[in-house]
Every structure is written in structure tokens, then in C-alpha cells.
């Protein structure tokens, strides 16, 4: 009986190990495949050239520029709003109907499919506000999409600031807002930065929302205002990989684009993870 239980345990643990191994294998197979096929494509010209000859040659410069614009635009919307909302929720809000509604809204925004955000951005920003398919409409849409991520990360960061900091400051007669501004916020900044960096990765990779709100198949020049259409890395990859008659011919460009996109997103993730673990260790001390 006893040895039977031991045997079961060994079988079960082997299964768990294999399952975990499979998950890890997925990560490495995908990364390896994109990196090994893409790295030879990447060069300075690839990063700084316009696409040429109906996108079968040349680089991805306008797509990189477009993605950078989207990052700047959406962060300008979501970062201030998200941090302020997080301060309200952690420092001021009392349990009640308002707090409940805000929490519920954030949870549901977080779970809403990105293509639905795209429809919303199309109907509200592009059509109703008359921004048209544009950097502005797409940035606002992506801003709303990452708002829950920024709020959650900022809330978590604020909650890790020890209560004693606040009490000490309040006991000295400092007002609540001054306490938050001078004592709480400075300690919470690393956590907030982590959330912001993670959402940069998210913005860079999102395709469906920008597909509906202004991403262009091909543009011969860079966008010149917030009302211009734009090219972006993820949509460029989708276009190269699925449309047109030259799919096989442009495969190297596809790998190159996928790798650049992957590098941007992964470096953001790695930076965020590094910041987080650095400060977690510091907190423990």
C-alpha cells in the first residue's frame, strides 16, 4: 500500500514535469524559429529604408515610425489617467457603489477582446468624433485598451508602500495629498514604470484594433499629422504574410519584421520583469 502511493507519486510527478517541459519547449521553439530565420534579414538598411518595389524589397522604416507614434500617443492618454485613477482607488475610495462600479468597469475593460476595442474606436473616434482612420483614433483606442493594465500595476505599486510611511507623514501635519505626492508616489514609481513598460509591449503588438482605426496597407511617406493614416509593425507583418501574390518571395522580410516586433515586445517584458524583481528583493530587506 505504502509503496503503491510512492509509485503513484512518481508517475504523477513525471507527468507534471513533462507538462512543464512542454510549456517551456513552446517558448523556446517559437523564439528559436523567429530568431534563427529573422536575424540574417536585419540590417541597418532594413530598419531605416522605405519598402520598395511593391513591398517586396527594402525596409520597414515607416512601420517602425508608426509603431513608435502609437506608443507615444496611447501612453500620453493612458498613463496620466491610469495613475490618477489608481491613486483614487487605493488612497481615497471607500467601499461603495462608485468604487464598485470603477472596479467592475476596469475588470471588464481588461477582459474585452481587442477587436471589440477596434469596433469601438472606429465608431466613436474615427466616425462620431470625425477623426477618421488616423494615428489619433488608433492611439486613443489603444490608450483605452491598456488603461486597465496601467491602473492595476499602479494600484499594486501603491499598495506595496508601507502604511507607516503615510502615517508618519500625516502625523507631522502634512495633508493627505502632500503625503501622497511627496511620500507615497516616489516609493511607488518603480511599480508604475513596470506597468507602463508592459503596456508599451502590448501597444506595439496589437493588430486588430489598429486594423479598424487607421493602419494602412502601404504608405509612400511618413505620416505628417495626427490625422494621417500610418503603417505599423504588426499590421505590416500581417499584410506581408497573408495578402498579395508575393507571399513566398517576401518571406525573409516577414521573418525580419516578426523578429523586430518580437525584440521590441520582449525587451519591454524583460525590462519590466527585471525592475520588478529588483524592487521585490529590495522590499524584502
Amino acid at each position: 500500500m505504502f509503496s503503491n502511493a510512492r509509485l503513484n507519486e512518481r508517475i504523477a510527478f513525471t507527468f507534471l514535469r513533462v507538462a512543464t517541459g512542454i510549456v517551456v519547449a513552446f517558448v523556446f521553439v517559437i523564439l528559436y524559429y523567429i530568431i534563427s530565420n529573422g536575424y540574417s534579414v536585419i540590417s541597418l538598411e532594413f530598419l531605416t529604408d522605405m519598402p520598395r518595389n511593391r513591398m517586396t524589397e527594402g525596409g520597414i522604416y515607416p512601420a517602425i515610425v508608426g509603431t513608435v507614434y502609437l506608443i507615444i500617443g496611447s501612453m500620453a492618454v493612458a498613463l496620466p489617467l491610469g495613475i490618477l485613477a489608481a491613486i483614487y482607488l487605493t488612497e481615497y475610495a471607500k467601499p461603495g457603489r462608485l468604487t464598485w462600479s470603477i472596479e467592475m468597469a476596469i475588470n471588464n475593460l481588461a477582459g474585452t477582446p481587442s477587436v471589440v476595442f477596434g469596433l469601438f474606436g472606429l465608431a466613436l473616434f474615427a466616425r462620431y468624433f470625425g477623426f477618421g482612420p488616423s494615428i489619433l483614433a488608433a492611439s486613443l483606442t489603444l490608450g483605452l485598451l491598456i488603461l486597465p493594465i496601467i491602473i492595476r500595476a499602479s494600484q499594486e505599486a501603491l499598495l506595496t508602500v508601507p502604511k507607516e510611511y503615510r502615517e508618519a507623514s500625516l502625523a507631522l501635519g502634512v495633508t493627505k495629498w502632500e503625503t501622497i505626492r511627496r511620500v507615497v508616489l516616489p516609493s511607488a514609481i518603480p511599480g508604475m514604470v513596470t506597468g507602463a513598460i508592459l503596456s508599451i509591449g502590448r501597444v506595439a503588438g496589437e493588430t486588430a484594433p489598429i486594423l479598424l482605426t487607421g493602419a494602412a496597407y502601404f504608405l509612400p511617406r511618413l505620416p505628417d499629422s495626427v490625422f494621417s493614416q500610418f503603417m505599423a509593425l504588426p499590421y505590416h507583418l500581417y499584410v506581408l504574410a497573408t495578402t498579395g501574390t508575393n507571399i513566398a518571395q517576401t518571406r525573409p522580410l516577414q521573418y525580419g519584421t516578426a523578429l523586430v516586433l518580437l525584440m521590441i515586445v520582449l525587451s519591454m517584458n524583460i525590462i519590466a520583469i527585471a525592475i520588478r524583481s529588483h524592487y521585490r528583493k529590495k522590499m524584502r530587506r
Partner: protein
Amino acid sequence: MSGRKIKEKGIEYLLSLAGILAVLALLLLCIFLFRDGVMLFEKYPIVSFLTETKWYPTATPVHFGLLPLLLGSLIVTTGAIIFSVPLGIAAAIYISEIATPRVAEVLKPTAEILAGIPSVVYGFFGLVVLVPYIQRALDLQTGQTALTGAIMLGIMALPTIISVSEDAISSVPKSIKEGALAMGSTQWQTIYKITVPAALSGISAAVMLGIGRAIGETMTVMMVTGNSAVIPGFPSGLFEPVRTMTATIALEMGEVPMGSDHYHALFAVGSVLFITTFIVNIIASYIKQRYRFHL
């Protein structure tokens, strides 16, 4: 003194506005989504939308039947969950209960990488690697099938399932596990008789969130499932092309005149998608709150 108080109150109101804006965003999202969706039903009966078996948006007469798209989403999501739930939960148990802390510290961010990879990159990988593989391995006409989509979506749902279940499992109080071990249970008996049942609510929430992620995924399914809007059989439909609700919206919206019936039909599909994920999310947060550990 009172000037200071007024300033403090003012700041509190300003901050609350930022929170209220999140509520406003959700409300506006519902209004604009449903408004354009409901406009379809002025010209096309809602009953036909829900019961018709054909999605022929550009034929005459037009057919805006939701069923093939809804069932397409359903078959792909079901496949993804069957594949990713056992794998994800097993990995979560391994990370929180068996791996040494150092190994766990490496495994957790590794699994997180899966969450960071953009969906279009998954789609691209699926297209160049999995699609030809499935076609050859199963000797099919095309490798762009519901199964291909299910596998890719399963991989994408893994990080959600792993991290949420891992949280639930590691939040089971140590005292309970130690009690079981002290009674002479093996570590495995403790895991499957004590720890996992105690964490079951969190694990179910993880599964629900994984389902939400899979239903809402767009680019990956659009690139690997072949996108033919026919009602899939089960399980034979797994080996044929299908088209999901998400893919339909993303594929067709570009070619649709704004304000046309087809435009409104896509918003109607979007509304159904939104309501589905909304319900899934509500269930997930309900389970999580209801059965949280109180000690």
C-alpha cells in the same frame, strides 16, 4: 486652513474623475457597439440573425446568420481549452508545489514570455510552421483548420491559466498542507486531495479567463483557421477550415462602406462577442470572490 481643505477636496474630486472615466469608457463602449449593432435589426430581423445558418454578407439576397461564426468560435475555443487546461494546471502545480524556489523563479518569467508574444507573431508562426505540419501529418487538403487554431490559441491561453492557477495554489495555507503531510500522506496525495481542491475556485477562475482570452483572440485565428464561414461538425469540423466571430469582423470591416447593413451586421457580431466575454469575465470574478480563502 480652510483653503487647504478646499484644495484637498478638490484634488480628491479630480482623482475620482479619472476613475469615473473608466466607467464612462465602458458605458460608451457598450452604447456605440450596441447602437450600430441594433441598427441592423431595422432591416434584417433579429430572429434571422440568430437562427440563419448562412453568413453571405455580399450575396443577393444577403444572409447575416450568426450561427456559423458563433459555432466557429466555439469549436476553436473548446479545442484550445481541452488542450491548454490540463497542461496549464499541471505546470502551475509543478511551479508552486514541486519545483525548488530557484527553478520556479526561472519558470515563471519563462511562461510569462508566452503572454508577451504578440498575437500576429503567433499567427505568423502558426502559418509558416504548424499549418504545413498539420496538412502533412493528417494528410488534409489544407492545414488551415479549426484544430490549428485551437492549438495556437491553447498555447496563447497557457500563461493566463498558469499564472492565475499558480496564484491560487500557492495561496493555500501552508498549515493545511503540513497537516496532511504529518498524517503520513505523500506529497502527491496532499496535492491532489488537499491543495488542488482547496485552490479549485482560483483554478476555475483561471480556466474562465483562459476561455475569455481564447474567444476574443483575433489575429492568430484569422491567420491559421482558413476563414470559411460554414457550420463546423464536431469533431470532424476540427479538421476543416472555420471562421470565428473575431476573424469575420477583422477581415470584412476593411471592405465595408460605413453605415451599410454589412457594417451594422459586423457591429452586431461584435456585440455578441462582447456580451459573451462580459459574461465569462463576470463568472470568473464571481468565482474568485466567492471562494477566496478566509483565514
